[in-house]
């Protein structure tokens, strides 16, 4: 398995670097740049769809990265930047969907399934084993038994 380590490490570095490598205009302040990149990781690229704008090389992603940086240097808060994006592209642009009426099942579904499953398991475990019923044999059973015993004695 060790032979996998190098490619995996390599991939991790490459993926982390992302398409952000193509950006020339980074923010001067490293704290602001870190904040910008933190926000970018939460914004979905609308062209490549399952990548964040950090990972995407698409022109639109580059433009959106530039906008995030501009707004951070203009002193906008994180919430204001997210709002800028969602008024244009909807909640869709957020990689982490917000909790609202459309996403209730998404957020609460797993918890509900866990509770239902737990309840079923609990019920099954707690169910007492069937008590030993020692009822007298019926007349036909008695006869049958007698027959067997006699047969064995032969």
């Amino acid at each position, binding site marked *: 398995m060790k032979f996998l380590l190098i490619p995996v490490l390599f991939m991790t570095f490459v993926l982390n670097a992302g398409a952000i490598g193509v950006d020339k205009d980074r923010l001067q302040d490293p704290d602001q740049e870190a904040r910008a990149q933190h926000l970018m990781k939460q914004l979905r690229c*609308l*062209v490549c*769809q399952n990548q964040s704008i950090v990972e995407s090389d698409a*022109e*639109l992603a580059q*433009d*959106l990265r530039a*906008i995030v940086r501009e707004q951070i240097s203009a002193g906008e808060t994180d919430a204001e930047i997210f709002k800028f994006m*969602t*008024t*244009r*592209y*909807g909640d*869709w642009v957020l990689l982490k969907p917000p909790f609202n009426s459309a996403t209730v099942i998404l957020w609460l579904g797993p918890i509900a399934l866990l509770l239902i499953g737990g309840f079923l398991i609990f019920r099954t475990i707690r169910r007492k084993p069937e008590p030993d019923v020692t009822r007298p044999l019926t007349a036909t059973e008695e006869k049958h038994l007698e027959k067997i015993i006699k047969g064995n004695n032969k």
Partner: protein
Amino acid sequence: MPLKRFLPLFVFAGILIAFMIGLSLKPSEIPSALINKPVPDFSLPPLQGDGIGLSTEDLLDPENIVIVNFFASWCGPCRVEHPALELLGKLDGVKLHGIAYKDRPKNSLSFLKSLGNPYDKIGTDLKGRVAIDWGVTGTPETFIIKNGIIRYQHIGPIHQMQVEDRILPIIRNLQQEGAS
């Protein structure tokens, strides 16, 4: 209990229905955030010369249904939808405007020269920032506007079949809406 025996069947039916709904959705089609919202504020230069090519004011036209189409000469699907735009541009009570997205004005001009210019007014969005304000993800994209409110967004090229099936009914509905 006979009902209990059928429980797995009910659960299965439920999952089946959920799958049928889920699989018929198109997750790659981005839902529009700007429907029933006012058009964004913008003002863009024209393809040639100085002044204003297209701005928000042009879209507030109370007389006509306004269509705004984002295009670029480098965009293949824009060529595909060009005949559909010609058709829409000729309709009565409809104004078709174009926004050239990240395109050199020289190239946009020769694109329109060779295919024909269906637009009433044209703005040039060199940096693509106005397109972002419109929630555009790529060209071509088309918006149908009435009284300055965006009513429909078409992502991708309008095929000629879709003009008849989708676009014209929307325009007719919007026109009737005002008449009643």
